[in-house]
């Protein structure tokens, strides 16, 4: 990775830059949502876009999420590439019918005649001290909906690269932005030509041979920290960042698990019915005879998202990950 001209940037800035570059390159890219224009979004991810491209390209809409996504569908029908911002995870729910019954199916329903090159940006997850309805992890809903791509960056560079790819995609992408990583920083240069990341490829963030931590988005830093801490216990943990939940990169994930023979899936979302079930099940289907222990899951509890003062007890932290690693039946090893 070249570091020429790299400067520290936050994930929010990288996302902004991805939209900016896409809008500059392609006049059919339009951003719309609540407060995305003049204010630049409540997380400032669209900051400056209305000023640079005008209010017709970056539009403050009325306060109505089904209307936002529904009109975006119509815009896509006419050949535009709308990038919709939902202000918070739970506020995407009013748009659920449009997403499930139209966005995800339009291409299929019309035998490809009417594709939906549309991005729905959803800030998701907790850890920012938000009051109720501001910290949901809603990825399970989107994963269970055929026809959508579901993508989530965990690094500043991926935030740029994956959002560029999402906007360039001819299919609808639910783009999940981990709220608590918005202000995470990295040295990063958006001028690298290789910046656009293809959708659908997981990446090994840290190599190790004891066990694999399979994770994404807000839980990546937790897993990296856990892997570091695990060295003290003599475990070398491999950390896989999925980046794309749909399509799912079986190859990268299974290659890792076959190497290590043990795996833990880590995510913030509630465990029951959450992404971890699918991931554990498909890894087990494919790697059964390589597994020394069942694939375990570390996740938020099966409860409504807690109030800010209690959220740290809900969110999977380093200790909970290490506890799970410890339960991977190491005695079998000896």
């Amino acid at each position, binding site marked *: 990775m070249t570091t020429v001209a790299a400067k520290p940037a936050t994930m929010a800035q990288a996302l902004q830059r991805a939209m900016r570059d896409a809008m500059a390159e392609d006049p059919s890219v339009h951003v719309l949502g609540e407060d995305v224009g003049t204010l630049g979004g409540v997380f400032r991810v669209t900051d400056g876009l209305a000023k640079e491209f005008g209010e017709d390209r970056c539009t403050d809409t009325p306060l109505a999420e089904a209307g936002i996504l529904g009109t975006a569908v*119509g815009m896509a029908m006419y050949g535009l590439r709308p990038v919709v911002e939902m202000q918070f995870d739970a506020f995407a729910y009013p748009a659920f019918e449009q997403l499930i*019954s139209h966005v995800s199916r339009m291409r*299929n*329903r019309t035998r490809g005649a009417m594709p939906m090159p549309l991005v729905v940006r959803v800030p998701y997850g907790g850890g920012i001290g938000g009051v109720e309805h501001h910290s949901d992890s809603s990825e399970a809903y989107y994963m269970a909906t*055929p026809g959508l791509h579901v993508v989530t960056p965990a690094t500043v560079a991926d935030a740029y690269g994956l959002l560029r790819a999402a906007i360039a995609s*001819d299919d609808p992408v639910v783009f999940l932005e981990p709220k608590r990583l918005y202000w995470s920083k990295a040295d990063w240069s958006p001028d690298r030509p290789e910046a656009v990341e293809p959708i659908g490829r997981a990446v090994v963030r840290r190599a190790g041979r004891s066990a694999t931590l399979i994770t994404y988005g807000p839980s990546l830093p937790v897993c990296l920290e856990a892997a570091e801490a695990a060295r003290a216990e003599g475990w070398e943990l491999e950390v896989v960042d999925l980046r794309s939940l749909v399509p799912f990169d079986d190859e990268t994930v299974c290659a890792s698990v076959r190497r290590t023979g043990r795996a833990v899936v880590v995510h913030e979302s509630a465990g029951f019915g959450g992404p971890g079930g699918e991931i554990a099940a498909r890894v087990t289907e494919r790697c059964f005879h390589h597994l020394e222990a069942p694939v375990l899951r570390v996740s938020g509890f099966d409860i409504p998202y807690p109030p800010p003062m209690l959220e740290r007890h809900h969110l999977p932290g380093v200790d909970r990950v290490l506890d799970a690693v410890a339960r991977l039946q190491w005695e079998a090893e000896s």
Partner: protein
Amino acid sequence: MTVQELPGAAPYRPTPPPAWKPRTDPAPLLPDPEPYRVLGTDAAAGFSPELLRRLYAELVRGRRYNAQATALTKQGRLAVYPSSTGQEACEVAAALVLEDRDWLFPSYRDTLAAVARGLDPVQALTLLRGDWHTGYDPHEHRVAPLCTPLATQLPHAVGLAHAARLKGDDVVALAMVGDGGTSEGDFHEALNFAAVWQAPVVFLVQNNGFAISVPLAKQTAAPSLAHKAVGYGMPGRLVDGNDAAAVHHVLSEAVARARRGGGPTLVEAVTYRIEAHTNADDATRYRGDSEVQAWREHDPIRLLEQELTERGLLDETGIRQAAEAAEAMAARLRERMNADPELDPMDLFAHVYAEQTAQLREQAEQLRAELAAEAEGDGR
């Protein structure tokens, strides 16, 4: 800040709230108290004989189309058919007022409007036959997919019209919805976006008195559905939905207004669903025959035929010709629908994504293997 800290304690004369500038005048947005009518009134004289005769031919054809489609359900050739019998004036006028470049957004009941706009009737009926969802390329005739989730097509129409305007194209979108559909949140959000964006859209509500079994009085307490318009800041228009000339006129005005940048209009066409909700429904469970009978007297074809014959614009020959043309259309449709559609189960995986994912390739292989095994089994 408490009141004591407020700047200046000088004598103070209360004023109206500062933001209160007189806004839009509501008066021109309100619908007339009675539905607008043309046929049998003096206004009819202003309508060109060509237009009236064209409407007549289309109504007759439309009625025949409805009857034929219903017959096809009985023969097992259609899974289901929601008939627009009695509503042909709305269906036909909606199609006829649009230019080629304009877009039509039909609801699930509006295959007739799509057909009147030029769509192949077999393609229009594909959804209801069940071999695929949307049976046509929406771009070909600029007809959006027939929409089943009620009112969800309305924001699409707004977005498309808005996009066209942003691109500098003078394209108008006409979106159709039922009286029941006006209760959905999407109706509200679509009309609001349209008015705020001044998008070139016309919303046509066919108030046919029922949402399946639910009569209008259980659907709304509004003076009329057209009165909803003022709440969005757009004009509301009320029209006799069985008077083809009146519907055509009101819609034409709304389309022209939208095209010249005047923004959206809400049109309520007062009509009646003569048949049951679909062939699968039993309307006798919730309504009496006398109401249906009263509406049969106010039949759209009869109204127009009367006007035309009285003015000498239509004679027995004309009536026969229209009927014959409709009969020929029906015969062709019957014949074509009698052929089994060609089905390829592998299509299930062909259009989910632009590029098939590895996961779907695997599943497609599984189905292919299953089909091969099935074929072998059949061969045995």
